[in-house]
Each structure stands twice: as C-alpha cells, then as structure tokens.
C-alpha cells in the first residue's frame, strides 16, 4: 500500500479550447481503491481516459510503474477498463467476450477455459458461458464486463461509472461486490463516479474534482468530516454553507450571532465560509407564546447554551419523514437551514438551534484565480 504505481504529472488537456484538466498532479498507490469524484464536466472521465490511453494529454506525463506511458496505445497498456454501459461484444457469447483479451494474447485453450471458469465464479455468474450478452440483466452484464477485464490480470482496473445504469438496490449490492473483488484480486482500482455515496462506501482514497482541478484528496472520513472548501462540503453530502466572519481564534460570527468553534489561524475579522452538516444542528422547541425571560423560554435557552453559547431562533418550515430520520427546514435569519434529526418538530414549531463547536467547519473564501473554480455560483 505504499509504492507509487501511477504518477500523473502536470496533466493538461483541452477540447476545442475548453480546458478540461489544468495542471493535474496525482499519484496512485499500489492496491489502492481510488475514486475520482465530481460533477459532470469536472474532468474525472478525461483523467480516466488518459490513463486508459484513449486520450493523449496536451501537456504532462503519465508514469506507470516507473515507465513513461503517455504515448503508449491502449492495447499495449497493463491496465484494463470497465466501461460505462458495459460495452460488451453483442455478437459474442459470454465465454467469447471473456476470452477476447486472452485469445489476442494467444493463450492456450485450456488456460482460457480455466480463466473463464475462474472469472465467472469470481463475479458469481457460473454457468453463463453460452449465454448472449443481451439475454443478461444490466447488473449481470456489468459483472461480465468486469470479468472480461480481470482475466487479463491487469495491474490496474479502471472503472468508468460502472454502476451508473443500475437501479439503487443493485448498485448497493454491486458496491459490496466491487470491494470484495478488489480485496480478492489485490490490484489497484481507479473508479470514476459522480455519486458521493458510492465514493464514500468503497474508496480508500477519494479525489474530489471540479472544473479540471483537484479540490481535495483524502480518505472518505477526511473528505466528509474535514472538507477543505465549500465545493467539497457541498458535494459530499448535504451541507448548510453560509457566509461568516472569523472574529478571532475559536469565535465565528454568523448572521450577527457569535458562535464558539474550534478553528484557529484564520486571523481576526476575516470573511470565511462556514459549513454545518444538517445532522449536527440541534433543536430545542420553545412554546409559541413564551416571552424572552419567561421560565419556559429560559429553560429551553439553558439547554441550548450548553451546546454552544451562540444560538439561533427560528421556525420549522418544512418536514419530511425519511425512515431513519426526519429532514426539516428551519427558517432563521432569512436562511433555510437543513436539519436532520431523529426527533420530530411540527411545521410552525418555534425552535432554538445551535451546533457543537467541534462540528462547525470554517473554510477560507476562494481568493486566487485557481480557487475560483471552487466558488459556489459556478457549480450550482
């Protein structure tokens, strides 16, 4: 889990003057499950196609196992791709599909037969040798596409949104299958998706991309808990992202209310982006007619200030039952806060709302040209 297997150096690629990748640098370790995650047009698929050899970068090198493969044709590379929508050979049986790469390499019939059996067993489709691709379901076709790639014993398997065409239940099953496959094969998986849940479930490392730039590289926990900018925070899970001012270390002002937080080193009176996950917001109900200073109000207030000295007062404007929890919108200071809670608050309930200092994420506002790609308006 330590050797650099692939090294992308200063990769730049433009199509018809549109810069898709701008000076991308990324290395991928051996046996890593690495996910390129981002919205459509972020350059993730182009990166994968450059790795597969289907695109040549305008600038930069692709180093694979110490050798420069930037200009090597796809059929000469030691990696195999699982394409979007399977791309099986419709005129060949399942066995012929799987054998395709092996026959090209002139392997013996016995070897090919064993490999087909092994691969079909690995993807739980034993006995499918003589079926035709179009007689298989989407999930089955996808597994055949994986089998067809892995029989060639690639060092790296590239997967281009392989689960995109499958329904939710099947997608979840296939996620576990892919993790199992990766562990059994002990090879590197590079996975492209726009589905953050897929990325969080399967990856060792997630690379969040937007508009040709890498926004953040990290483990799923890092990416979720410590997003480096507003884009990552918004893209990974739902978030409340608001403008704030960093008054001083450990104190941030949002909509005129000062909150304790744990972040330091942002300077004083600096504008920042503040990210609060909806599941981290905590609510306490206050009776409709309770005046400030009344015993009911003060008891609610005393509970909320235990969480954070700063708090908002707002009204629940919307609620949806989601099974595990309720998804609510709370109007406070003209902002619609998204709140997830296992407790239910009727629409119209007056609430006090706050958040544990530890769960407030403070982020720099984008300043430089490069960071502009991060700005929210362009992406939403």
């Amino acid at each position, binding site marked *: 889990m330590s050797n650099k297997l692939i090294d992308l150096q200063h990769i730049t690629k433009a199509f018809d003057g549109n810069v898709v990748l701008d000076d991308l640098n990324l290395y991928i370790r051996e046996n890593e499950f690495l996910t390129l995650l981002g919205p459509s047009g972020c350059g993730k698929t182009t990166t994968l196609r450059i790795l597969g050899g*289907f695109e040549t970068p305008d600038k930069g090198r692709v180093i694979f196992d110490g050798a420069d493969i930037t200009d090597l044709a796809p*059929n000469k590379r030691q990696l195999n791709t699982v394409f*979007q*929508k399977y791309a099986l050979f419709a*005129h060949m049986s399942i066995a012929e599909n799987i054998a395709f*790469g092996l026959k*090209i390499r002139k392997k013996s019939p016995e070897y090919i037969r064993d490999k087909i059996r092994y691969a079909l067993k690995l993807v739980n489709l034993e006995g499918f040798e003589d079926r035709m691709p179009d007689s298989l379901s989407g999930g089955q076709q996808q597994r055949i596409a994986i089998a067809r*790639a892995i029989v060639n014993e690639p060092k790296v398997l590239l997967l281009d949104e392989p689960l995109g065409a499958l329904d939710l239940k099947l997608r979840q099953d296939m996620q576990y299958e892919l993790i199992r496959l990766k562990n059994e094969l002990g090879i590197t998986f590079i996975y492209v998706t726009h589905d953050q849940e897929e990325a969080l479930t399967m990856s060792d490392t997630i690379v969040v991309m937007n508009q040709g730039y890498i926004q953040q590289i990290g483990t799923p926990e890092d990416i979720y808990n410590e997003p480096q900018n507003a884009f990552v925070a918004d893209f990974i899970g739902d978030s409340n992202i608001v403008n704030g001012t960093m008054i001083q270390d450990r104190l941030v002002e949002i909509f005129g209310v000062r909150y304790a937080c744990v972040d330091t080193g942002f300077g004083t009176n600096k504008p920042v982006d503040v990210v609060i996950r909806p599941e981290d917001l905590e609510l306490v109900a206050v009776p409709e007619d309770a005046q400030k200073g009344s015993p009911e109000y003060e008891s609610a207030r005393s509970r909320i200030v235990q969480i954070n000295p700063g708090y908002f007062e707002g009204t629940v404007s919307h609620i949806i039952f989601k099974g595990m929890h309720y998804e609510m919108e709370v109007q406070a200071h003209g902002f619609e806060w998204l709140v997830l809670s296992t407790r239910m608050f009727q629409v119209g309930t007056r609430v006090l709302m706050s958040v544990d200092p530890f769960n407030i994420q403070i982020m720099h506002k984008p300043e430089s040209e490069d960071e502009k790609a991060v700005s929210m308006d362009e992406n939403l």
Partner: protein
Amino acid sequence: MKKKMRFWLDGPYLIWTAAFIIIPLLMIVYYGLTDKNGAFTFHNVMEMGTPERLKALVLSLLLSLLATAICLLMAYPLALILNKMKTGATGFITTIFIIPMWMNSLLRILAWQTLLERNGVINQFLGMLHLPKLYIINTPYAIALGMIYDFLPFMLLPIYNALQKIDVNVVNAAYDLGANRFQTFWKVIFPLSLPGVISGITMVFVPALTTFVISDFLGGSKVLLIGNVIEQQFTQVGNWNVGSGLSLVLMIFILISMAIMQHYDKDMGEETTSL
C-alpha cells in the same frame, strides 16, 4: 371501443396490403400457373428452360452478383471513413450521395448512355487526349457499371447506419483488451456491422437481378437480362401467362437469396438493421 379504434388504425394498412401486394401477387401466381383458357399448367414456368432465357437468367445472376460485390467493396471503406468524420462533414457527404437519388433513375441511366456511347462524351474526351477509346456500351460491362452507379447508395446507407450504431466504447473495449486496429476491425467492428452489410446486399442484389431499364439503355438490344425477357412477354409478346410464369421462377431465386441472407443475419445474433 378499443376494437373499433384498432380497426380504424389497422384498416387502411390492411386494405393497402391486400389491394397492392397480396392481390397482384395472387394474380401473378394465377396467370403463371394457368394457360390462356384458364386451365392449370406448369408450361409457363417451364418456359424458363429455353437456352436463350437460361442464358439471360445466368447473365443476370452473374451481373447482379458482380455489381453487389463491387458496391460492397466501394461502400464499406467509404462508410468507415464517413463514420470517423465529424457530424457536419458526414451530413454533407451523405447528402451528396443521396441527391442523385432525387432524380429519376431513368434519366440517370440515360445520362450514362450519353457518356458511354461510341461517340459519347467520354470517347470525345479520350479522343482529344489521343487515348484509346472505350467501347463498353451495349456490353455487360456497361450494364454492371449502371447497376453499381444506380445502387451504390443502397449499399452505403445501411452499412453507414450499422457502423453508427456501434458504441464507441465497444471499439475502445477491444483496444483496451489488447487488440490492434486490424484485430479490432475483423473481430468487433465488421461482425457488428454485418446486419447493415446484409441489408445492403439485399437492397442491391434484388433490384439488380430484376432490372430491365439499365440493360435496355446500356445493353442496347444486344444484351438481354431476365428482366428484359419478362418485360418483353408483357409489353411486346402480350403473353401474360408466360411473363408471370417466368416472374415466379425469378421470385424463387430472390427468396432463396433472402433466405441465405437471413440465415447469416441470425448467425450473428444481431437484430436486422431496419431501414
């Protein structure tokens, strides 16, 4: 209610099919298998057995096979090139191929007659350059040329269609699995384009086999194809029974060729490209 609706939707089509396809076909079968007095006979069908007519049939088969083969050899590479081109350029070139089809095919064949005549445009041009002249008018070569010219679009378009339908990732998958360009073509692209090739072959071979216009204009009266033989029975001899009998024989040849094509099509496990 639903039944009534169905009738109004299906009705016109059924009436059309009956009036213009089934009834004429039955009439040909009736004429072909009866004599002038309406008595049943195989005589009209046996009329194909004369040396002159057998010769016309064999020549027709040979010429239409040749034209089909040459059309295929010309159209396939062209379709491949078109498929690689950007959308705008492709539209332009396919339009160029389709525009001649907007003109009456009779006129186009007449134009070839003018071009190929002993003192036609081509020979005048060759004469100006002091090159040997080309005397192919009124020979089977001229007829084959006319067939190729007339039917090439019918080969090109279905093949182009079939190539367009191939997912670019399927081709990429072949490269990805180690195939070079040559292997990718023969193992993936060509087999997947076969439905188009087969409809192209059918759409060139059948009209070429039955044509009498092309052989009339470019073969003079010297080269007779089976289409001319049948046409003469209707227009000159006025013997509908023999004409229908000969048509039935030709129809059998066409059915056989279609059956062979269908067989290949099914072998490839692909749906037929509909056109």
